[in-house]
């Protein structure tokens, strides 16, 4: 099947929903391709919608969600545009390849892993808005490959989608404000959070409060989480990390330590938490860059060390007709993603407005806040010291930190591409989505952060999603 529209939107999370609504309301014919089976993305993931459900149920799904009213508003407009025939909604599909054509873009899709039997669709569009979001950034530590170790966002998604917990007793570790809603969500759902370990320190926030003051809503969120932590007696330990996940065939505990501002372990501060069945790690987010990179957009390193796309005031990338919104322009959360989505959708619908368009001031404020947040919650410079030579870095291909050090020191590997060649790190099922950042750091050397070139090498995935060979065989010449 194929669909031809004015504007194609990839993703139906906060940015994608907003972009689709804005483009459709500006008069464009829109197609939305999304891996999920219903709109919302990771952020507004909720229980499966069925025809029997009432409006009250959907309201109730909002429990534990931030900005649920924003979702309901966007969703109502999305549904209205869909009924009016202005939005073609293509759920359960992943884009495995995006191509530039003579006068636009072509998207090739494949059924998503958890899709409810969607058939592949080819989407042709004059303009393209990419809102693929991001996923939890992971750093390896000894034992992180044991069952029972999850991404912090994975725990949250599990709760949102299933309404139940993936375990009983949790330790959450990493850095960033995202650890707070994850821990609060676990506690609200009846789980026990033994500790939240934050490698940074609240005092790190102080110099950046000025920037934050432009976004009062964020302070309110923080206060809500503080209240939830007090209510559930969740210990919040700063300048603390998990140095090792303990357990033989699955996670059963963690060893923790206090660290200095660079992330170096302070001797004598080690401590063991036993009787843990789920360990959640979150070190910020990695924007999902394979589609923007494959289409050749100009990229840059953001304040959190992630590779992101460069956009202008109207969210247009360096590729004419290609707009980016949400985490791929810099990790900044759902509110910013919605604002960017609205701007991108409107711009894609009317590529030439005739008059200069000023971006909403709120976008700039939220970006400043996000920058401050990234600076307050850096990946600790000394994190590579936490590894032992036999710590697994690439779980798919079972490549250890020692293998990578050897490739760097003996064979001259120094970026993701050469590491991949020499060690197979990032060659497996996940194609480096989990280990890419860590491998890039290890390739750069102890205490070093990877450059944009190395991260772009990691984000370069000629198949943006796994695709059936039977489907490829059916491609017409």
């Amino acid at each position: 099947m194929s669909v031809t529209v004015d504007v194609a939107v990839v993703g139906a999370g906060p940015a994608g929903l907003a972009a689709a609504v804005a483009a459709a309301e500006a008069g464009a014919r829109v197609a939305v391709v999304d891996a999920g089976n219903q709109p919302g993305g990771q952020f507004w993931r909720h229980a499966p919608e069925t025809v029997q459900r009432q409006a009250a149920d959907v309201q109730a799904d909002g429990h534990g969600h931030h900005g649920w009213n924003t979702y309901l508003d966007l969703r109502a407009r999305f549904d209205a545009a869909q009924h009016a025939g202005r939005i073609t909604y293509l759920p359960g599909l992943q884009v495995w390849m995006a191509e530039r054509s003579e006068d636009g873009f072509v998207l090739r899709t494949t059924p998503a892993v958890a899709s409810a039997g969607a058939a592949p669709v080819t989407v042709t569009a004059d303009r393209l808005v990419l809102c693929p979001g991001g996923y939890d950034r992971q750093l390896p530590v000894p034992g992180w490959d044991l069952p029972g170790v999850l991404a912090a966002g994975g725990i949250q998604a599990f709760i949102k989608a299933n309404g139940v917990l993936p375990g009983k007793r949790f330790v959450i570790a990493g850095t960033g404000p995202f650890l707070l809603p994850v821990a609060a969500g676990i506690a609200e759902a009846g789980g026990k959070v033994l500790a939240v370990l934050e490698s940074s320190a609240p005092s790190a926030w102080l110099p950046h409060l000025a920037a934050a003051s432009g976004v009062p809503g964020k302070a309110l969120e923080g206060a809500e989480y503080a209240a939830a932590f007090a209510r559930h007696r969740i210990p919040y330990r700063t300048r603390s990390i998990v140095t090792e996940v303990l357990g033989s065939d699955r996670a059963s505990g963690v060893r923790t330590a206090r660290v200095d501002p660079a992330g170096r372990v302070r001797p004598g501060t080690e401590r063991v938490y036993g009787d843990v069945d789920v360990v959640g790690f979150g070190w910020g987010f990695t924007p999902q860059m394979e589609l923007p990179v494959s289409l050749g957009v100009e990229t840059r390193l953001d304040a959190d060390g992630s590779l992101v796309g460069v956009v202008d005031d109207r969210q247009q990338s360096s590729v004419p007709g290609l707009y980016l919104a949400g985490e791929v322009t810099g990790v900044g959360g759902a509110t910013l993603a919605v604002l960017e989505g609205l701007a991108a959708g409107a711009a894609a619908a009317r590529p030439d407005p005739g008059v200069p368009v000023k971006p909403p001031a709120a976008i700039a404020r939220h970006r400043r806040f996000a920058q401050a947040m990234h600076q307050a919650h850096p990946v600790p410079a000394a994190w590579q010291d936490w590894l032992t030579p036999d710590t697994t870095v690439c779980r798919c291909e079972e490549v250890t930190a020692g293998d990578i050090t050897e490739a760097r020191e003996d064979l001259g590997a120094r970026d993701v591409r050469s590491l991949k060649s020499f060690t197979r790190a990032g060659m497996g099922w996940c194609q480096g989505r989990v280990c890419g950042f860590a491998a890039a750091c290890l390739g750069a050397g102890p205490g070093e952060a990877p450059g944009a070139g190395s991260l772009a090498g990691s984000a370069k995935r000629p198949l943006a999603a796994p695709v059936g060979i039977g489907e490829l065989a059916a491609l017409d010449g």
Partner: protein
Amino acid sequence: MNFGNGPRGSDVLVMGAGVIGAATAYFAAQQGLSVTVLDKGLPASGTSSACEGNILVSDKELGPELELTRYSLGVWHNDLAEHKKLWEFESKGGIIVASRESSLASLNRVMAVQKGFGVDVEELDQAALREAEPHISPEALGGASYREDCQVQPMLVAAHLVRLATEAGARFIADTPVTGFMRDGGRVTGVRTPRGDFPAGAVVNCTGTWAGELAAMAGVEVPVLPRRGFVMVTEPLPPMVHHKVYAAEYIDNVGSSDAGLQASPVVEGTPSGTILIGSTRERVGFDRTVSTAALGLLARNATALFPFLERVKAIRHYHGFRPYCPDHLPVIGHDDRAPGLWHAAGHEGAGIGLSAGTGKLLAQALAGLTPDLDLTPFAPARFGEARPQTASREEATA
């Protein structure tokens, strides 16, 4: 690894640290020559990192290339035996499968000739073929088994040969593109780079698809052209494909100069569980655009050979540019048109397999010995006279 400068002169300067340059440097160092290797990036950044790592006898035409193949196979098995594990050397064997009566007849003819030249090939009837490859298509009529076909991980070959060469005294300098040649009269006496000049007794052009450009800089024509190939990689699976399995049409394609898209299935399992599906051949210059036509063709051919692949997912694909000469022979040896300049390039899709032999033979010639195998059929001068030098004459600076 030595990335430093030090004294700049050497007996041999190798341009390019792909698998050919790495093997040349390794064997030249074994000959006791002082060696400098320059690469514009890292080892194995070009075609060596974008191929399948084949060491094949089965696809060679009779003549000088088969001779070189058999010689090279001996070098892999003998001279380099102790290092096999470093580059995951695997004697997996190749099987050519015929699915039509007509192609079975051609295959049988080829086999008879190859046997006469000492190639280790065995005919497989339908039952034997199914025993060797239980998941082969029920359409397959029969095949030929080439036990000498083997495989290496080519990036590891290049990187380790460079490392071993440096341990034997060679010097490797990364990120150093050659921008011109030092000349003394007609003679090439070294190279110019952004890091300064590197004088050398012999300069060896091992720059693969770029070899023509470098040769032109020295005023000689070496027509090495790129021929694009796509390879697809599946999700990891339990062992389903045990050999390198080709369709009988493969042999016809290799020798073709047709510019259009061609492909015949080459399907093989790897130690990591993924299955490689190759390979297309297109003359489209250095076009890096992903071609859905090429992917579709690969998929159709592969599923015709192994129907189970239809239900398997591809997780990535890659493409590379095979460096080929119009007469489908590599160019190996001293360039009499520009004394001091040597070439080892244009091995097309066979560069990994031929690298060991090429390196060893060239090192013998560089050391002033008579090579074990006559290199005349590969001589650079077969491409005609030297052109007037484009660059002004430059004096050697020691």
